[in-house]
C-alpha cells in the first residue's frame, strides 16, 4: 500500500520525465500537495519503508523513480520542519541519479528552527513634564532622545 494514490503517482512520473534539472524537480515536488501532505502527516518510518521498497526494485520505472524522489523530498521536508536538521541521506539514495544532489541541496537550505529566549536589559528612561507642554525624555546619559509637542 503506497502513501501516494495512483493519480498522484502518475502525476509525479509525468513531472519527472520532463524535469531538466534536480533543482527543478525538487522545487516542484516541494510544492506538490501530495508530497506536502505526506511530509506533514506520515510517519518517518513509513516514508523510509516505502522509499527502501522502491529503491530495492530490480526494475525501475518512471513511476517508481518519481515516487522515490517524492518520498525523498517529503522526508527532507519533514525533518526540516522537525529538528531542522536533515542528517545523512537514507540508505540507497545514490541509486537515484539526482538523489544525492537533491538531498544535499535540501540539507544546505535547511535552517534549524530551534529557538532561544534572550532576556535583554531594559534601558532606563528618565522624563519630566515642563509646564504641561512638551515632554522631553532623557536617556541614561542625560541627553533628550524623544521630544514631543
Amino acid at each position, binding site marked *: 500500500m503506497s502513501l501516494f494514490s495512483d493519480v498522484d503517482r502518475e502525476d509525479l512520473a509525468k513531472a519527472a520525465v520532463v524535469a531538466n534539472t534536480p533543482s*527543478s524537480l525538487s522545487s516542484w515536488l516541494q510544492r506538490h500537495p501530495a508530497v506536502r501532505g505526506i511530509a506533514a502527516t506520515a510517519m518517518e518510518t513509513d516514508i523510509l519503508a516505502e522509499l527502501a521498497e522502491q529503491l530495492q526494485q530490480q526494475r525501475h520505472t518512471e513511476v517508481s523513480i518519481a515516487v522515490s524522489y517524492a518520498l525523498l523530498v517529503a522526508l527532507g521536508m519533514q525533518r526540516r520542519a522537525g529538528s531542522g536538521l536533515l542528517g545523512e541521506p537514507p540508505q540507497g539514495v545514490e541509486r537515484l541519479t539526482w538523489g544525492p544532489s537533491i538531498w544535499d541541496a535540501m540539507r544546505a537550505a535547511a535552517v534549524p528552527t530551534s529557538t532561544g529566549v534572550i532576556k535583554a536589559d531594559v534601558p532606563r528612561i528618565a522624563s519630566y513634564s515642563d509646564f504641561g507642554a512638551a515632554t522631553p525624555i532623557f536617556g541614561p546619559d542625560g541627553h533628550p532622545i524623544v521630544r514631543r509637542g
Partner: protein
Amino acid sequence: MPTSIALQTALGTDIENEQGTEISAFERNWSVRLAQDHPNAKFRTGLSPTYNCHGLTFASRRTRIWDVSLIQLILREDLFEEIKEQHHVLPGDIVIYRDYNGDATHSGIVADNVGPLFIPRVVSKWGSGPETFHALHDVPPVYGANHQFFRCRA
C-alpha cells in the same frame, strides 16, 4: 552508457554535460498524450534522449546540461543580456524559466513575438520528449511560471 562531449562557454570554461541514451516505455506512452494535454502546441520532432532543453538552447542539440549553476555561467560567459520588456523580445532570443528560488528549470528559443499581445512563442524541448513549438506559458507545470528573456551580445 551515457557519454559526455567537449563543451565550453565562449570564454573557454568547461561545461559538464551528459548525452542520454534511452527512451523508456513510459516516455513513449507519455508522449502519445502530449497532443491531447497541449492541443495548441506543435511537436516538431520525435523523442530524443540525447539532449534536453538546455542542450537545445545552449549546446546545439548535442547533449544534456543538468547543473543549473552552469546555466548562469553560460549566460554570463556567452554575454547574454536580459531583455526586460516583453514586447522587445525578438525571434532568436532565449527564454529561461525559473522556479521560486530563481533556479533555471527550463529554457527555449523564441520563435516569434507578435503584437498586440506580445506573448512569445517558443521552441523548447521537454525532457526526452519532442521539440515543441508552444506559447510561453503552455508548458508542463514543473517548469513554473517565472521567466526571463535574454539576447546574446557576443
